[in-house]
């Protein structure tokens, strides 16, 4: 009974996966016949492609920022809203709300928010007398990646917060009671009870956020398409452009392989790091 799903998945996931390995050894523009070039694409990519390294840097920076802040904020908000009071439940519903929107909608909304002349972000800073912060957020190389990372965090913090709340509510109440009897401060309670007890949840949140950040294609494509000057270009966008703007199928396939390698490496390292914490 598992056969239909397995066959479909095999045909349209694993077969393309293998085909991708084959394409990566060719030079192909889809107009002429593919030409076998061995590992030339791999050599080119590693030794002679500044854009690839820029994109790798962007992708890692973006993932790091999003994972750090999304995990931090979602944990903080979960702590604030962990009790099931009516007001807290209403706020949870509100904070979760962006998650149900599409990346393109979120992209369009924040395109306006960041508008250098009319956007609410700059309006806010100008009103406060902080004209120095009124930047062309998405238009300048220095700030665009950060502006999108902020949007991504805005987009999914509520979803991760709900996961944290479920985790926090599993922590036995007695632990807090005895900590309180020992006269532990709020910070000490967090340090010695909440944080160690919520590490399994943190592992889930960080793993999911990592994959989510690698899949931020939709958001980035609708906000900046990788610009300005490739400062927001990440792997998925780069691969898309190599296929459609440059018609270099073989090279795009090679980029995809590195995309997979980086994704797997980041996930494995992260899991190692967190589980070593957990076992202590």
């Amino acid at each position: 009974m598992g056969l239909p799903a397995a066959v479909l998945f095999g045909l349209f996931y694993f077969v393309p996966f293998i085909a991708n390995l084959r394409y990566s050894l060719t030079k192909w523009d889809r107009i002429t016949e593919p030409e076998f070039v061995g590992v030339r694409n791999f050599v080119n990519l590693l030794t002679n492609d500044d854009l690839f390294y820029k994109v790798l840097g962007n992708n890692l920076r973006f993932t790091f920022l999003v994972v750090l802040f999304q995990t931090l904020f979602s944990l903080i908000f979960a702590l604030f809203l962990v009790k099931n009071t009516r007001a807290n439940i209403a706020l949870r519903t509100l904070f979760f709300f962006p998650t149900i929107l599409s990346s393109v909608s979120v992209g369009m909304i924040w395109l306006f928010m960041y508008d250098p002349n009319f956007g609410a972000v700059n309006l806010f800073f100008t009103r406060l007398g902080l004209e120095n912060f009124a930047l062309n957020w998405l238009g300048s190389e220095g700030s665009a990646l950060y502006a999108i990372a902020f949007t991504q965090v805005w987009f999914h913090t509520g979803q991760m917060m709900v996961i944290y709340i479920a985790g926090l509510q599993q922590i036995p109440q007695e632990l807090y009671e005895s900590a309180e009897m020992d006269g532990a401060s709020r910070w000490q309670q967090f340090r010695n009870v909440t944080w160690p007890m919520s590490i399994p949840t943190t592992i889930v949140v960080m793993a999911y956020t990592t994959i989510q950040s690698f899949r931020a294609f939709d958001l980035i494509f609708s906000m900046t398409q990788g610009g300005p000057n490739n400062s927001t270009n990440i792997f998925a966008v780069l691969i898309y452009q190599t296929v459609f703007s440059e018609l270099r199928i073989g090279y795009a396939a090679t980029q995809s392989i590195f995309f997979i390698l980086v994704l797997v490496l980041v996930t494995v390292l992260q899991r190692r790091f967190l589980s070593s914490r957990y076992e202590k």
Partner: protein
Amino acid sequence: MIYKSIRYVSLTIFALLIIIPSAIVVLGSSKTDAEVYNKPLALPESWNLNNFRFLFEVSNVGRSFMNSVIVTGFSVTITLVLASMCAFAISRMITVTGKILFSLFAVGLAIPGQVNLVPIFILFNDLQLTNKLSGIVLINVVTTLPISVFILTAFFRELPKEMYEASEVDGATPFRVYRSIALPLSRPAMGATAIFLFVITWNELLFPLLLITDNDKRTLPLTLLSFRGEFFSNYSMIFTAVLVASIPMVAMYLLMQRSFISGLTAGAVKG
């Protein structure tokens, strides 16, 4: 005291960060472009549906909306049927086959189908599945199978074994056990998975962008994206379109918040 004020201030800031952009969009759909730019947060001079009327007249939004409904409906249904059958099989198999099947989908979960964009683009061109809604349905099903199989397997494994064994003794075929016992019991898990699938399928951009060039076959996110070029920075139109694209999900969210939240987090936790 300090804790309380920090809590109050940060909750207020995040609440405003969500309310303000949403208000700008909702109010903007009743405004002219000049109003959006000059007074984004003021109430519109008059509440009206002019933007909606204009949008449906000049653009393909109506068509795209229908396309999205069709694509999402078929994708979610097919994924649910295939994934639940597969998950049931995995949970009932103690043999190696079950483990292999499970780890196949585990790979798909760790490495999302999006990394296959090059070979899928080539393959779908060869199979002439581009510019077809069925092509989009097919790739949606493939990319959402792993997560659905995971959520549902976790659920089926929790069902008490005796439930199945009794009916197997009575000579029921596996398919019968699946249909008359497993499926009815799994309604909550199926519901949660369905919601998760609805949201991600309705909002999906990458594969439609890759496989659709024909205006009449566009799904909503694609049409919305094209507005950036077409209406340039005509934000009253863009906001109206954002609203049209979001209304089904927002309405469902407001009606069944609980199931939505648990559905969308099950996707993350089980994955």
